[in-house]
């Protein structure tokens, strides 16, 4: 267990990597728009973790401040995205993104 003891940068980065991967996977594979949004939140969180981790281990405040802004923006994003999803739903009667292929034309 000794090598586990010092919790370092890499631990956080690993977690963030996994989070990012899961988020990405959700964005790629899920048909439901809301789950995709969730994946996006996961990705943002992964980024936040990284920012904060680097901030901590470098002693700067930039990462902290950035994570703060990211959270704000994530909130705004979530609001807008949900509004869009609802609009999509209103138009296509579905939140299944695989059925939304008007870009094909």
């Amino acid at each position, binding site marked *: 267990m000794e090598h586990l003891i010092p919790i370092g940068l890499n631990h956080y980065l690993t977690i963030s990597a996994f989070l990012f991967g899961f988020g*990405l996977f959700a964005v*790629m594979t899920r048909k439901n728009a809301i789950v*995709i949004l969730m994946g996006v939140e996961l990705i943002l969180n992964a980024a936040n973790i990284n920012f904060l981790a680097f901030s901590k281990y470098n002693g700067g405040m930039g990462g902290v401040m950035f994570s703060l802004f990211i959270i704000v923006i994530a909130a705004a994003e979530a609001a807008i995205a949900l509004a869009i999803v609802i609009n999509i739903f209103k138009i296509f009667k579905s939140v299944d*993104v695989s059925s939304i*292929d*008007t*870009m094909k034309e």
Partner: protein
Amino acid sequence: MHSLIQLSIVVLLLPLLSFVILIFFNRRLPRRGDFVGVGILGSAFAISAYIFWSVIVQTYDPAFRIAWDFTWIDLGNVHGIGPLQVRMGIVIDNLTAIMLAMVTLISLLVHLYSTGYMAGDKNYGRYFAFLGIFTFSMLGIVLSDNLFSIYIFWELVGLSSYLLIGFFFEKQSAADAQKKAFLVNRVGDIGMWLGILILYSQFHTFSFEQIYANLAAGKFAMSNAWLTAAGLLLFMGCVGKSAQFPLHIWLPDAMEGPTPVSALIHAATMVAAGVYFVARIFVLLTPDALHVIAFIGAFTAFMAATIAITQNDIKRVLAYSTVSQLGYMVLGLGVGAYSAALFHLVTHAFFKACLFLGSGAIIHAMHHEQDMRWMGGLRKNMPWTFATFTLATLALAGLPLTSGFMSKDAILAGAIGFAQVEGGGVFYLIPALGFFSAMLTAFYMGRQIWLVFFGESRTHLKPVDNHHHGHDAHGAHDDHHDAHEVHEVSWNMRAPLVILAALSIFFVYSPNPLDGAEGWFMKMIKTPATVVGPANHNCATTLVKAASPLMAEALPAVAAHGATDSPAVAGGEHATAKGEHAFADPRQAEIAHAAHAAHFPAIYISSIMVLVGISLAGVVFVFKIIDPDKTAQAIRPLYLFSLNKWYWDEIYEATFIKGSVVLSKMLSWFDTNVIDGMVNGVAFLVRKLAFANNSFDKYVVDGFVNFTAFSVNTTGAVLRKLQTGKVQTYVVMLLLVVFGYFVFYFTRLLY
């Protein structure tokens, strides 16, 4: 300037004046101006006679020679040569004086005669103009002192003969004949011209005097063969003008011209120009060239004589007889019998002119009937003509007491001497042909005399169709044609006959009827010393060099002949004994010596041959012991061969004329189809190329654009399958690429 030169210039220009006056003003003058022509020629003859008198009678010097020249063309200071000029000039020596007198006399007589013969022709004035320019050209040849002016007048003689032969140009045959004469002469002329060029290219001068001086000094830089070639090429001019084989074919056809013209140019003067020219260039002829000349002369003499036997046209017989006699002259020059050849030239000119004018009189009297088969019995109707014609015939046949006898004998003696000196063998062919031709001459002239003047008139035997055909061309004479009365011609035609016949008798030329060498002519005209120097000539020119190889060969021959002295001594003796022939060339000396020795054998043989010929004619035509028609049938191939003039016309027609025409057609075809075809082909190709370029533009360049569009389209069609419209698919792709980049990046890291 010597007064004789001035006079000779006047003589030269007078006929030209006659030409100019008559060609422009003949229609405005009374009698179409014939008196102008006759008068001018009369004065020209008077002056010529004065020159003759001064030179031959008063001076009486074999070496007489005066010359004058002027700069005609100045080429300035020529690079590499220095000042260069083309000079024209006049030379008068004995030969010139004699020729001058002869030409003007015959021309005067022909003018006079023509006033009767041509009377009533619609182009009467023009006829005298042409006679004028002809006389002018001929006098130019006689007086020239250089090759260039001789060539100029030579061609002018060709022109005037063209104009005169084709005087009745409305007749197709006359038009053909004039063209033929000019072209055949031109063929000879280009040879002559090349000969002139060879000499000029060496010495940059045309003057005889300077060329001979340079040659004698051995300045001829080219090989000896070139000199022989130069001589032979110059001789080619003579072959053309003097109607030697193989260019003899124009002369018989030239009988299409008016008969006085035939007398003037085709018997007495123009054809003599060739012989005269060879005499002028005699000194530069190499022995090789002389051999060729001798053989050509002998062959021509023989061939023409055989043809003359069977001809029916009175003028054609005379024409071939002329060719034959010209062959004698050329033969004479070839064998080195220089004086004899020129002697024959003069004697022949007079008696042949007489014969032609006589035949003209007959034709005139017979209303333009020329075929001897339909004549006969004219002796009683035309006594003057008969007498003169017979006298001239005897001269032509070479019976003793005539001029022709002396000159022909001298030539044949020279031929025998030549054959002896040259070592016999094939060279004896030359005298043999000469003698045989003499017999033939006597035969056909006897036939002609008999057919024309003896027996009964055969006019009524003539087929009618032929009769009318023969007259169409002479519409002017048609009116008095129905009357078939034959009577003597008027005085202006008779007088020339008498004068010319008188000049055919021996005493004009020599006191001794058997030896022309005793006469003034042979004494005044000497064989000139050859200038073909030792530098380029294998025959020595001086007595000192007598031991050259050829002399060594010649010695045994002379020895075999019985000459005891060495040839050089013989020549020297000969010269001293006679006090005249101072030969520089031992070969010439030898020939002269041998010829002198052969004088009497030649007389005997030729007299015998002439008698044989005349008796043969008598046997055949007078006593009818041999029927000529049956004989002709018996030897039909030979007869036809002779009648058709050895088929020379046909041969030339088939080869040169057809050949030229066919070649010209081919080249013209080549020009229009191949050369022009190539040009048009190139144009066509360029146009095709333009089309191809257009197609290229259309299909390749445009096609490339279209292909790009097509391929983009196709690719798009393929790729649009990827465009699902689903954002997630795009994300997957994006990430695949990102992943791919990772893979790439890490592999880079690994290596």
